[in-house]
Each structure stands twice: as structure tokens, then as C-alpha cells.
């Protein structure tokens, strides 16, 4: 096995793509937080990037089969942490998502639960060893994913909880659902939507309404979308240049270094910049898909595809939100938006993918 773990066997293209995207993110964080109280965010993000690389290396070292074997334990810990979060969590912006871990650091369990969900889905589906999904398995798997999802949604952190769904969805898709399953999932979703509306918090409803019609409440929940669209549009073809975006620099754009970082990037780098970023992401995702295709076993494939679906979902929702094509949720742009937990969890997932790659059958 040792032969597989040599440096040259690392997925260098994937790593380099991820590093370039992260570097663009740090550059944009620097520009967006210039002269603001967050002006230390860019180098902190750099530190997190370093931590992420370490985590990636760690995740590549341990055989993913070992991790798969620990899924029940990891799942149990996850549930326990998610239950603890509301009990010991720090209230930030109206919800409890973080557990303080001392030295001023906070830990967001829901980010790391993503990793566990990837492993859970991969293990469950790989062990079925069938090309067809039985209804019973479908329900069990959905239940297993649904429990942490509900716990996170109740924090409340709807955005993060929704990110578990693409992992499950791509798993089911690849696992071979019957057409009846697909139909009933769609019907169920249609039925659940009005129910979900009742369950949503007021601000969440407002966000959805705003998504449909941002001008309805331009200074309230619509403000972010409107300002973001102005920022993106004003960027034009070539962008205003680093630290030159008026929407970003004059803080018309909300939470520029986190949720709306991509709007700031679009304002300062223009459509050309966005083509570059989307191109990098596309190549990154394709590289991960390629790893899925060359995975030594089903579990490895499911891991890669789960990670890929998760990253795709993040990118669509975040970048779509910036141009008003998606509702406003707190889902960050992967690798770019400021945030340590997100950075760590993503690099750990890339580590998993690398792990799968290192154990591929070299033909």
C-alpha cells in the first residue's frame, strides 16, 4: 500500500486548482475588508488554508476504508455534537451554530457533519452491492441523513442543513432508484413544500419571498440581493479592479467577505473573472469526477461523487444567490468565502477524494 502514498501519486491537479481558487478567495477577502473591522480576515483565511492542507494530508493518510468502518461511531459523535450545539453553543446572529472551543475559536459541528454524511452515504450504498435500490434502504438512508439534517435545521441553519441533501441525492441517483422512487420523491417534495413554509421562520420566509420579488422589501430582506446584483452588474466585462469596486468598498454590499464574497469578486474582476473562477471550479469538479470513475470500489466512488455534489451545490447556491437566481441562504462559496470551519471541512473532503485516488487501480 505504501507505494500508493508517494507524493507523486497525490492528485496534484486537484490540489493546485483548489489552491488557486483559495488564493483568489484570499485576495478578494483582502480587498473586500480593506479598512473595515474585518481587515485581518485575509491572513486568517491564509492560516486556515494552511490548516486545511494539513487536514487534507491527514485525511489522505488514513485509508478511507478505515474511516468507513468508523461510520457508526462518527455518526454517533455527530448526533451528540449537534444535540450539544444548542445547549452550549454561542448565539451568533440569532442562531446557535458554533461551539466555543477556547482561545477565541469556535467550532461549527454542522460543517464536519457533511464529511460524516459523505462517508455514511458511501458506506450504506456501497454495501448494498445492488444496481437497484429497495424502498426499505431508501427510507433507511433518508432517515439516517434526515436526523442530523433536522438537528441542524433547528439551530436554525437551514442553509447548511440543505447541503446534506445533494450528498444523499447523488447517492440515490447513482445507487439506482426505481422510477417509482423518483416519482414519489418528487410528489413528496411537492407536498412537503407548503408544510415547510409553515415550519420556516419569518426571516426565512421573507428570504424566499424576496427571492421571488426582491423589490418587495428593498431595504429589508431584499436589500442584500439588490445590492449584490448592482455590484455584479457594475463589474461589467472586465471588472473595476482590485479594491476599486464601489459597492464593495463603500459597504453597500452586505457581508462581503463571507456570503457575498463572490459578488465582490464579480464587481472587481468582471465577467472575465467569473469565467475564470467558474472554469477553475468546473475543472476541479471534473477532476473529482474523474477520481470517482477511477475509484477502486463503489464506496470510493460514492465518496468522490458525494464530495463533488456537495461542492457543486455550494457553488450553484452561493453564486446563484449573488445574481438573484437562488434565494439568500448562508451557504458560503467553497474555498473562497471567509470561514475556518468551511475551509477545513472542504480540504478534509478533498483529502478523502485524494485518499480514494491513492488507492485506485492503476492500469
Amino acid at each position: 500500500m505504501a507505494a500508493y502514498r508517494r507524493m507523486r501519486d497525490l492528485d496534484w491537479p486537484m490540489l493546485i486548482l483548489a489552491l488557486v481558487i483559495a488564493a483568489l478567495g484570499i485576495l478578494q477577502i483582502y480587498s473586500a475588508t480593506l479598512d473595515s473591522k474585518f481587515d485581518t480576515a485575509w491572513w486568517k483565511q491564509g492560516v486556515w488554508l494552511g490548516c486545511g492542507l494539513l487536514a487534507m494530508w491527514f485525511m489522505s493518510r488514513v485509508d478511507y476504508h478505515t474511516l468507513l468502518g468508523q461510520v457508526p461511531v462518527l455518526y454517533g459523535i455527530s448526533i451528540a455534537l449537534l444535540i450539544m450545539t444548542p445547549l452550549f453553543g454561542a448565539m451568533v446572529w440569532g442562531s446557535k451554530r458554533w461551539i466555543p472551543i477556547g482561545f477565541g475559536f469556535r467550532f461549527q459541528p454542522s460543517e464536519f457533519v457533511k464529511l460524516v454524511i459523505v462517508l455514511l452515504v458511501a458506506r450504506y450504498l456501497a454495501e448494498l452491492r445492488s444496481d437497484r435500490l429497495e424502498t426499505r434502504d431508501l427510507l433507511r438512508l433518508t432517515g439516517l441523513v434526515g436526523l442530523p439534517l433536522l438537528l441542524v435545521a433547528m439551530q436554525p441553519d437551514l442553509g447548511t442543513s440543505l447541503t446534506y441533501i445533494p450528498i444523499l441525492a447523488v447517492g440515490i441517483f447513482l445507487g439506482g432508484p426505481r422510477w417509482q422512487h423518483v416519482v414519489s420523491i418528487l410528489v413528496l417534495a411537492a407536498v412537503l413544500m407548503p408544510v415547510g413554509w409553515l415550519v420556516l421562520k419569518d426571516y426565512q420566509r421573507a428570504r424566499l419571498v424576496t427571492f421571488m420579488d426582491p423589490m418587495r422589501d428593498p431595504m429589508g430582506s431584499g436589500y442584500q440581493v439588490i445590492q449584490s446584483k448592482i455590484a455584479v452588474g457594475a463589474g461589467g466585462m472586465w471588472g473595476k479592479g482590485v479594491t476599486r469596486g464601489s459597492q464593495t468598498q463603500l459597504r453597500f454590499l452586505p457581508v462581503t467577505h463571507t456570503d457575498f464574497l463572490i459578488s465582490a469578486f464579480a464587481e472587481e474582476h468582471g465577467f472575465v473573472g467569473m469565467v475564470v473562477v467558474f472554469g477553475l471550479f468546473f475543472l476541479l469538479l471534473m477532476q473529482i469526477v474523474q477520481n470517482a470513475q477511477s475509484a477502486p470500489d463503489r464506496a470510493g466512488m460514492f465518496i468522490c461523487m458525494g464530495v463533488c455534489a456537495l461542492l457543486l451545490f455550494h457553488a450553484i447556491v452561493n453564486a446563484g444567490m449573488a445574481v438573484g437566481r437562488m434565494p439568500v441562504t448562508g451557504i458560503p462559496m467553497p474555498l473562497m468565502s471567509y470561514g475556518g470551519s468551511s475551509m477545513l471541512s472542504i480540504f478534509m473532503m478533498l483529502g478523502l477524494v485524494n485518499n480514494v485516488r491513492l488507492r485506485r487501480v492503476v492500469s
Partner: protein
Amino acid sequence: MRIIPSERQPDSSITKPLVRDETKFAAGKIAAFQWIVVGAFFFLLTGYWDLQVRNEEIYNAKALQNQIKSLPIPAPRGKILDRDNRIIVDNHEAFKLILSRENLKEEHIHPIALGLGLEPDVLEARVKRYRSRPTYFTIPLKEDLTREELTFVEAHRGEDSFSEMELIRSQFRVYPKGGLAGHVIGYLGEISDAELNSPEWAAYNPGDLIGKMGIERFYNEVLKGVDGQRQVRVDNRMNTREILGIKEAVPGKDMQLTIDLDLQVVAELAMQGRRGAVVALDPRSGEILALVSAPSYDPNQFVGRVNSRDLVALMSDAAKPMFNRAVQAQLAPGSTFKPIVAIAGLEAGVIDENTTVHCSGGASFYGRYFKCHKKGGHGTVDLHKALAQSCDVYFYTAGNRLGIDKIAEYAELAGFGRKTGIDLPGEKEGTMPSSKWKIRALREKWYAGETISVAIGQGAVTSSPLQLAHAIGGLVAGGVWMRPHIVREAKAATAARRADLKTENVMKVINGMYAVVNEGGTGGASRIPGIEFCGKTGTAQRISNKLMDLGKHGDEYKDDAWFVGFAPRSAPEIVVAALWENGVHGNLAGPIVRDIIKAYFDKKARSDKKRPLNVASVQPPPAGGR
């Protein structure tokens, strides 16, 4: 042999190679997934293309609109001072709320109006009126904000609220308490729709404050100055990041009035509780020393937002407090008109100082009997006595000899029937009848009988207190009528009207008016010891004798009391005309004039005494020790 995950041992999948653990089965689906990724990024790119390439200009404009804000720098309005540079109207600084149209969102108009207690429809209409103006024109919302209004504004500004609301420091009017000189000063008010549509105010905008009456209105352009403007780059909290351009405000000019506050106060006190007006002026220059119209109003009521209930009360008050009687009242001057007839008679040569008329309490002219105010008659009277005793029969006779057009010639020279040109808005010209006037106004021939009433200041002749003061002042100054004015600098524009009157004729009239006060005439109650105070009483009928006989005896039909006086006899310095509506008899108006004349000379004596003292105090003190 499928095994349910929960039943299985960990790591079993790794240790035992199992069937169907290749990844080929999903190859097609993975390919499909790749297409989904392609589609997803295509979906995103079209979103960015739409905003950044197709609509770049729109969003660029919006981004600019976000950050550029034009704020007016209100020019402080000029202060108003009296002739001794005492402040009559001052300013104080407070907050003004304006609406920035560059950041205005239509849907905010309603909540903002409600929050400030304005009518949403009115505000919307105001915003509409600004459509044709460049966007850097801001809309004034409210002046002189109260604490509650400030709280509302502060609570609703900034990124997630009404960023179009902008507070600016501005100067507001402080008028003298209780409405002192209210009709002279006027007041500031928001421009009305009717005014906006008039050519006079074409350059103004809805919400602008303009002078509505008095000096504030007449000199609005001079007093208001020119507002400046500041164009700034702001951030989302509306903090100024960068000043792009500044056009400084040009402060309004301070205005020194000819009004003497000391005399004004005396005049106001004299008119307290009465309806009427007083005008005091210096006949040598035309400077108005005091101008009172009673009852008055308090301009402070109009500062900031006008309380519409107060306004309605003021407008519908039967005593018409908003009406400036001093320049707008048009009433028969009665016997105060006689000096004009006297000078006309003397100059035209139809009478001289020896002409006598017998008064038996009335006389017949053109088949009609005209009564004298004295029932028993004055006996034989000459001009001197006729003026002193105000004998109507004498003036009937003089007037009859003169004819209406000769009377009108001299009366018009003295300023009757025409505006004096005072620098106050709304002046009325009154009426000086003549044969030409009658044909023009009534399309009728003049009847000689009508002249008889005009000769004693009744009939069609009407005058304002200002006109009377102006006319008599110019006459006693020797036939030089200076344009009356209230602002000192207006002197330059003064064009005097001169008449070639014989000095001895003028002296005859003056001596007659001296007799009114000092030689047992009708104004004897108004004597001032030590001052050669001359005057003429006037008791003017409000209604014809016929109506009187019909039993109109209410207070509102009582005779108006007039008095016009001046001093000193030679080289008059001050002339005062007083009108006391329904004051019954002219001699009752005399004390009003007397008080003002006395105050004038008292003050003069004080300052004369003071002057040498002041000179002494600036002399170097005698050097001691040597």
C-alpha cells in the same frame, strides 16, 4: 445475499472482496452527472452574463446612484435690523429634513410621510413636481424638527432603512415675541401651489420657504441668499467618504430697516385693543419710522410647520389680523383731506387767507343741502379758522370753486389715487376721483354736486394711512414727496416728486394745522408742551347719511377716526397718520399720533444730550503727576 448495513461487522467490506463492487455500473450516470455540472455552470454564467455584459450600464448607474449624494448647504437668511441696528428678526440653528432624490425609492414615500405626520398624497405630489428638476435637487420635507421627529429620522436612517432621508443643519427664523412689527416684517411660509404656478415664483420649488408678507416677501430674493451644494461620496451608512465638490452658500443679506423700534413699540401700544393703523415717516427722506396695523398676528406661529388650525383662525377672524391696514386699507380720509383742498385752493387762486365763508351749520349746493359737522355753524370763517375748526362749509365752498379736476390734480400730486411705491407687498392705491376717473371707472359723467363731498374727504375718495402720511408729509415739507421706504438702502432708488408750491401758501396750511392742536382747534387734546405739533383731525363716515337714517347704528358703522400730525412746525421731521376704525371722532385718534411724536422728540433730546458726553469720553484723560 444482501446484508443490511446495521447487521454487518465493520471493515467486512474491505477484507472480503465481494461481488458487484466495481464502479462501472454507474458510468452512464456519472457521465450524466458531468452534464449536470456543465449545465449548472452554464446556468450560473448566463446569470452573470445577463448582469455584467447585457445590463452593465444599468447597474453601473445604480452603483453610482448608491454612492453619490448631493446635499444642499442652506444659506442663512439675512437678519432684519432696525435703524439703530437692533436685531428685529434673528435666526437660530436647528435641523431640517430633506429627501435626497438621488437615493429616493418610490415605495418609501408612504412610510416616511406617515412617520413624520405628513399626508402621503401631498408628499407624493411634491415628489412628482420635482420630476423635471435634476436629481441633485433635494426635496425639503420638514423644517425646525422637533425632538420626536428627530428621533424618527435617526431611527430610520442607514443601510436597511430610508437612506434618502437627510438631516442638515439650517437656520430658522426667530421673530420678536407677540408679533411686534408683524406687518412690517411679514413671515416665512412654505410656497403654495398657487404661488408655484405664478411667474413671480417660477424659479422656486415645492417645499421652499418664502416670505409671505412684509419685508420677508418684498425682499425675499435679497434675504434668502443662494443655497450652496455639496456633492459627496457616501458609504452604506451615509457617512461621507469623500467630498467631490462644494459650492458654498451665499448668505442672505442683512437688512437695516428705517423702523425705529422705540417708536414702533409706542405706536403698537397706542393701537392696542383698537382696529386701525399708524404710519410714522420722516417727510425729508421718506423713511418709515413706525408702521402698525392692528390687530396684528404673531409671525412665530408660522415658523416651521404652519398649524393649519391657527391659520384658518387667523384668516377667518373678522378683525382681519392678516390685513395690513397701513398700506391696504382704503377708507375715506374725511377732514384730514382738507389741507390738500386748502393748498389746491390757494395755489389755484380760488381762495386766499382773507377769503371768508359764512357757516350756519350747512349750505346748499346744486339743489342739495350739505351739513357741517357743527350743528350751530362756525359763523364767519377764514382759511385759518376753517382748518382749525374743520369747517365743512368753508371747504364745500372752496371745493366747489376749484372743481373736481383741480382738486384731483393737487391730490394726485400729493399721492392720492396712486401707490406710494413703498417697499411692502400688497399696497393699494386708493381712489382719487376726477371726471376722467369717473368716465373710466363708471362710464358716467361727473356731477358737480359730487365735488362737494370730495372736498371734505368723503364721497369716492379713499386713502390708506400710508398715503395720508405721505401726502401731508410731502405737503408740509414744501411740496417734495419722497418715496416712502422701510429698508434703508432703498433710499437710492427714491425719486422725489416735486410740486412748485408757493412757500407762503404752504405756511398758511401749516399754520392752520398748528391751530388745530394749539389754538383751540379740533385736536386741542393732543397738545405737547414744548413741541410745535401740528395736525388735522378727520372723522369719516363709513356709510352715507341715507343709510344712517335707515337705522344702521351698529359699532361697525361708526365713523372712522383719523389724525394726521407732524412736528416741528418749521422743517417737519416726522409726520404720523393714524386711523382708528370706528373710533367715532378724529380728535380721539389725536393722542395716538401725539404719543409717537412725543416719543420721537424725547428720544431725540436724549441722544442730543448723550452726544457731547460721548465725545468727552473719547478725549484722552488729563495726564496726572506732572
